[in-house]
């Protein structure tokens, strides 16, 4: 009977994890697609030096970071996968979402600063896990780069 109750709790958590996790993921992807289209004009590059036409732009640090939690279903699924090895597909979408969301937030910051492009973009990923590795973990992705925004017109003519 005890085992049955535990199994019931497990199945319920799994069901909740799957349902809400899947819904959150679908909604998040919709938002990512929409905003990527919206921010497509702010070019993101990994080049370390600005190209010629941006030589005279102002440079500023921009960054975007996001923390996304693993849901119970993904965690159990990954646990099963850990027994036999192979791609953990349930975590792949999680990282993909986090990486793209971080980029979008960085682009958003650049747009507010009036930038046209971001160079030298870098990523950092870390794990945020509570409860001594036994709880549901979450990941943080940080994207940062150098935003290049055009100098005010009067200023640039003055220096010429």
């Amino acid at each position, binding site marked *: 009977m005890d085992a049955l109750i535990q199994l019931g709790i497990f199945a319920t958590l799994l069901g909740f994890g799957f349902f809400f996790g899947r819904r959150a993921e679908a909604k998040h992807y919709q938002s990512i697609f929409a905003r*990527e289209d919206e921010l497509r004009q702010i070019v993101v590059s990994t*080049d370390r030096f600005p190209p010629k036409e941006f030589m005279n732009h102002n440079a500023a640090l921009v960054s975007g970071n996001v923390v996304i939690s693993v849901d119970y*279903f993904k965690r159990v699924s990954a646990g*099963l*996968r850990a027994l*036999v090895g192979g791609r953990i*597909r349930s975590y*792949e*979408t999680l990282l993909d979402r986090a990486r793209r969301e971080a980029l979008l937030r960085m682009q958003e910051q650049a747009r507010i600063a009036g930038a046209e492009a971001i160079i030298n973009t870098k990523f950092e990923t870390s794990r945020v896990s509570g409860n001594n590795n036994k709880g549901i973990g979450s990941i943080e992705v940080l994207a940062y780069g150098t935003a290049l925004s055009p100098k005010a017109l009067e200023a640039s003519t003055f220096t010429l």
Partner: protein
Amino acid sequence: MSFAKQNPKIPEGINTSADNPLKEFFILLAGVLLVLGVSVALLLLLANTFAPHIPFHYEQQLTNKYGEWSKSKTESSLALQEAEAAVQDLGQQLAAQADLGSDISVHFHLLDQAETPNAFATLGGHIFVTTGLLKEVSSENALAMVLAHEIAHIKFRHPAQSLSGGLLVQLFLSIITGGQNATALQNTTQQAGLLTMLGFSRQMESKADDAALTTLENYYGHLAGAEEFFSKVLAQHGQARWQALFTSHPDLRQRIDHIQRRAEQQSGANSGDNTAQAITPLDPRLANFDA
């Protein structure tokens, strides 16, 4: 070096896959459960094969406190002590007919539980009978059937099989779950030295029934009255006090049919002398027993 006018649209599905995660989950789960099931079945097979070869004195060492426990019941009534002696007498006579291994010995104990008719065999050859059961049997033959059945469990080393199988499986599960099952394992290990009712499989029960009938045949020369107690359990299984016994023996109907079939075969073979089928009355120490 120059920039594109805007970020390119990268096709989806390179870093992720569009497969439904449920599919992967269920394939993995089925695989893991299959492997677990096969491993558990193998472990149980192992236990069933090798447990009967565990020296019987190991079991006795684990359970020797039962003997002291039985002796220390000084406060129990004289009637109870006499009844226990009567059960012990009948049991030992049956055990002599049961073809036990030379190193196996059985000990009988009477439990003062008037409300629950039950009998069970556990490690070390200890057989427990409740006073409730004594009140439910009308003849010695019916009581002898129950005792012979429990003796047969001991003969085939079913308690050792059952416990070592359970222990192996729990040890295995606790290893693969990383100790989450440790409490269950601890409980079972502690039970080894305690007064417990062990669960026996269907095969074990019918094997014990068969051996018990043979014992009764040797002892009485006939099988009349053997199924009485079991018929009673079946007839009254709706009542709460019988529930414990009934849930541990769900296939009683088949077992009674089997006992009756063998009784008929046996009486067919002996059809010449019906006088031999007389049912032996209960020992007065048990018949007059009033808990």
